[in-house]
């Protein structure tokens, strides 16, 4: 049931603490501005992506189930 995810990062709030690439390194990376960016929304397991979203100190990450449209986080 691990369907595809839509993952986005609000760059108005991301402070570049790098929790997301640390927890889900195939999904997130730091860009040239040293803010989080999504490199592959399905790079890691759904569980790891959600863990990264939950651990983000600024709650900049939104995770949506691409098929059902259900918002999984926040």
């Amino acid at each position, binding site marked *: 049931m691990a369907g595809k995810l839509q993952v986005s990062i609000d*760059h*108005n*709030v*991301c*402070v*570049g*603490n790098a*929790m997301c690439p*640390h927890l889900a390194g195939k999904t997130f990376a730091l860009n040239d*501005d*040293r*803010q989080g960016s999504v490199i592959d929304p399905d790079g890691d397991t759904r569980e790891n992506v959600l*863990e990264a979203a*939950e*651990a*983000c*100190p*600024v*709650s900049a990450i939104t995770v949506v189930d691409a098929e059902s449209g259900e918002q999984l986080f926040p």
Partner: protein
Amino acid sequence: MVTAINDDMFSGQAIEDPYGYYGQLRSEDPVHWNEKYKLWVLTRYEDVVWCTRHNELFSSAVFKTDERTPYPEIEESDMGLYDDIRKFFASWFIQHDRPVHMDMRRVLHGYFTPKSMEQWRPMVKSVIKDLLDEADEQGEMDIMRDFATPLPLFVIAQMMGMPYEDRKFIRMLAEKLLFIGRGDIGRMQPLHDGIYELIDYLSPVVEKRIKNPEDDFISVLAEGEKSGIYTREQVVSNAILLLLAGHETTINLICNGSLAFMQHPDQWDLLKNDKGDVVPPLINRATEECLRYDPPVKSIQRIASEDVEMGGKLIRKNDRIRWFITGANRDPEQFEDPDTFDINRWPNAHVGFGSGIHHCLGATLARLEGQEAFKALADRYDTLNLEAREFDYQPSITFRSLKALPVTMAMAAD
């Protein structure tokens, strides 16, 4: 397993050699009940990270919730002072849980993005140059007094929009607030004085920024009052939080990091001979390693929100907890050769800035200042020579803070 370790964390070996002390706890009793001060001491990397990711189980609202008397004990006649102090610290945004924590913290995020911090880099470089030029005229310096302290202090005073000539006054007051992590029985009076002198100093500034916002973080907090998230009292107390957190920690990063380089000449040579051929750059890796090896903040406190079992022990609701970054950052389960200072270490998932939703808001600024400071030292000097054989640390369980770090410098040939 029960350990024979002495529970006095405010003196002796625990202050002089926290890596030995908390390392012994980590291997003998990683979830340790400190009977002397009646609190849990956590030292394992995995446990510390687990706690930070379970903020619903470990409350940050320590000063608000905890009605017990402080540890170590204080004069009974100082309990009235402590009540004021508790109320003050309880209003810091970091002393809140979700959802209020998120609302209060969000007001500040825009100010601390990497892009917005980057604009300070030229100023940081220029302050470093001035400080080291001044030191070179003397041929010697106390890194603590002449370099590590004035740099972050100057930067944070600028960010607050305070006049240059006020910075020594600001530091004098800030030093009184550092009594919070110490054991002196009479610590409440200086702490109380520091708080109220800072409130007196900053209240009129806040008043001005409410009327005429400027480009500083007091104005950002003042916006938070306008949108109803902060009260006036909270604007003032959180300005004091940012002032304090914004420089005390970086002071220790620069001082402890400089000491680590002097004690490891091979790593100093590596940094001096940096060819710029690794990604992320060596100076970034080196700064992370300084944050891991001898971190500015030693421990963080929490209160259990419910009963939690950890490592076969039962932590009960309302129990006091302190987790030690000092223990976690040297955990052999997480780091290879944890007691080796290796500036090439990468990845380096240290918890010097904490982890999870309370991860340091100012981490980007601290990194920027650390990177520029270490780079400038390595570019300018052939060697830094330690002029002290013994190191005296502040008797704090919160900060890893040297009292002085005298050195002489040998200039690099052009």
